[in-house]
């Protein structure tokens, strides 16, 4: 079950891939983006397998252009089918997605997840706070940072 939502963006080319199985969290994330006026297109993958299909243009996304990578991937860890860490591992193992910014956005504050995430090449690790104000602040800030301030290699080069 996919939940695609087109939003008005100040930079239409910058797509956000949100890998999240919990629809509530998807809703809250999108709400936080809105709150911070982040209008980029958000593609939602509800499990790891779908995220990989999207990124490598396989399965449902076979017709997609592989060169058209999202600006950032927001990756939950605990996912059906293929879990978040494995998705990360696969991304980093592929030349095409090696430098793709990945932010782990998870409920877990387990030390080992954090360490493993960074070890596999995550660019950032953000724990989802329970309190919504904090949550929306965290998501909003990371959107601003990665979408507006950060320069990715492919853009630079």
């Amino acid at each position: 079950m996919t939940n695609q939502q087109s939003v008005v963006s100040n930079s239409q080319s910058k797509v956000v891939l949100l890998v999240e199985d919990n629809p509530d969290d998807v809703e809250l994330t999108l709400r936080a983006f809105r709150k911070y006026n982040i209008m980029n297109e958000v593609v939602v993958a509800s499990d790891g397998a779908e995220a990989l299909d999207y990124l490598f243009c396989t399965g449902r996304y076979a017709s997609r252009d592989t060169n058209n990578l999202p600006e950032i991937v927001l990756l939950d860890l605990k996912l059906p089918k293929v879990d978040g860490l494995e998705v990360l591992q696969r991304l980093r193992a592929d030349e095409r997605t090696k430098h793709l910014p990945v932010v782990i956005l998870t409920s877990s504050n387990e030390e080992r997840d954090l360490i493993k995430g960074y070890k596999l090449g995550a660019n950032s690790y953000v724990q989802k706070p329970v309190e919504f104000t904090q949550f929306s602040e965290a998501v909003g800030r990371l959107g601003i940072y990665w979408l507006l301030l950060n320069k990715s290699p492919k853009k630079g080069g």
Partner: protein
Amino acid sequence: MAENMRKTGIDILGDLPWGTHFCQFYQTKEDLVDILVPYFKAGLENNEFCMWITSEPLAVEEANDAMKKNVSDFERYLTRKQIEIIPHTEWYLKGGVFNLRRVLTGWVDKLDRALARGYEGMRITGNTAWLEKNDWRSFADYEEEIDNVIGRYQMMAICSYSLDKCKAQEIIDVVRNHQFALIKREGKLELFESSERKPAKEALRKSEEKYRILYETIKDGIVATDMDGRILDCNQAYVDMLGYSKEETRKLTCQQLTPEKWHKMEAEKVKELIVAKGYSDEYEKEYVRKDGTNFPISVRVWLIRDEDGKPKGMWGIIREITERKQMEEALRKLSNAIEQSPCSIVITDTKGNIEYVNPKFCKTTGYTTAEAIGQNPRILKSGEKPPEDYKCLWDTITSGNEWRGEFHNKKKCGELYWEYASISPIRNSEEVITHFLAVKENITERKRMEEEIKNVAKFPAENPYPVLRVSHDGTILYANPCSTFLLGDWNCEVGQFLPDSLCKVVSDSFSTKSMKKGVEIKHRDQIFSFTIVPVTDTAYVNLYGVDVTERKRAEEELRKQRDHLEYLTSQLTVSNKELEAFCYSVSHDLRAPLRSINGFCKALMDDYPDKLDTQGKNYLQRVNAASQRMGQLIDDLLNLSRITRSEMHRKTVDLSALAKKIATELQEAQPERQAEFIIAEKLIAYGDPQLLRIALTNLLGNAWKFTRKRPRARIELGVTKHDGKPVYFVRDDGDGFDMAFVNKLFGAFQRLHSTTEFEGTGIGLATVQRIIHRHGGQIWAEGAVDQGATFYFTFTI
């Protein structure tokens, strides 16, 4: 002396005075009778007492017969005892030996009686035919003596000498000792008078003669020198001692005869003693013989002065003391031997009083020489020896025999010691016991060793485990009592072979010269572990057994326990994994719905503020707060579980520094608060730095929290001692707690205050307790409401 002239009865002599002492040389009996019969006839007729001592060749009877023939009333003289004719054996040799003094006093005695009986004097003769060569010298002395005696008394004597028995030198001796001599030659009587015996110089001549004899016969060397030591005269003994002739010595000086090293000493003696005093004391030095050898001498020197009293020379009497020196040396050696003897030596008188002890005695007994002298050796008695033994000892030595035996004696300090003693009598030259000598050896150590050897020898027999000795081929040589059952099991005995399997082990051990441990032998339900030890130099192999039944049982038990423990550990690992999975799930999944609750509450409040009244907003507010609190609870719970599960990495932790840092953080977080932190210096613990930081943060944080109401809080970290171990404490002067609830303090999510009064989930102290427990320590608390709280904790390293 003219008034004392007596008729001799011999024509050629006529009258002679009292004191005349002459001799007669004879060849036959007739020669004797011809002289002596008229001699005694004249005596008898002139009221003199007569004594005729006969000898061969004239017997007493023959003399009697001759007198009877020539003296008409001889029987009358004989009857009134005016004349005695007796053999020499009853006079000179009375008692078997010639005793000069007895004979001389005998003469004087006879004279005294004669005079008492009214005779005018005494006329005697004695034949010397009985004289043997050996006696000649002493008889010559006698003649010299009697010459002196007769000269002073109313006596007249003829001494008869057999001409055939005397040699020239002896005749000269005889003549020299008598005033004149009668010799019958060719039927005619002749008178010889010694030319030296001129009456006027008689006394002087006699004196000089005596000194001359003395000078030449004396054994000491006599030497006369001038003041420069040149030898002027010396006697025979002196030259004999040196090996020179008299002529040679006259060319020598005393210095030449003395080794160089004595010169200085002797020169001083001459200067300081001899010249000053006129003589020296006896002193010792050495002389050199002609052959170059040295010998020790003792010397006395007198000074000779001339008419003016000026020193003109010296007389020296020199005695060779080689023998004395040797004796002294021998004595010194003997004395040293006794003084340095490794044996105790004690000499007592015949009553047992100690007269001498050697140093070893003092060393052994602890008594000084002064303490021991005069004591009886019974001061050493320990009282263990029965009195009969001492009696036996005493009987043995007083009867002149040696006693040997052991004593268990007591030292001065009371310590007992063993000695082996030999006690024997010492006798003087007359074989009379004068002293007893005890030579004793301290045998305490030997006794102890013997005892030890005896004990050691009993060792294998006393061993409660089997001990066997076998030859290298497995023949049993010895089996201690405890191994009897093994021999029974093996159906063999000493002298036979071990079972084959053991024989093999024994011979392997022997040939490889290596000990083999852990050879197990079973006996019923017992297990023995044997150590096989080859004794290569004696071709033996020793087998030492130990009962390991219990040990084996314990080992088996231990193995079971270990297996069980391994099982439990694996179970625990599984549980831990499950717990971990659970925690992970909680961390992840429990939070998500909360976030939804909180998030959508917020969305409602944000998006529909105009659709909700105050009451509705308040409800949403509460839902929001509850979700937040639950989020906090989940976090705390996870933290607590993490503390239990995380791995420990112990190192040295400076609690003082850590506490100061936490205190600073607390103060910075709430700068408006007034608080005093008193943190003891150098509190060092050994533990996991992360965990200890959490524990201290919680304890100090608690103290900080519960002193909030104090205008000026006081928070202390210190250490005290309990049972010698350090006990740390965190003390505050805050709200404290009721001791009735003390057991609830450390329970997870247990709270003694409402969240509105003091924030928190009630997980802090539970966390601290887990951390302290993980460090093997204890934690407890003391407090009272409004009077502060103290948390004590310990660590085990």
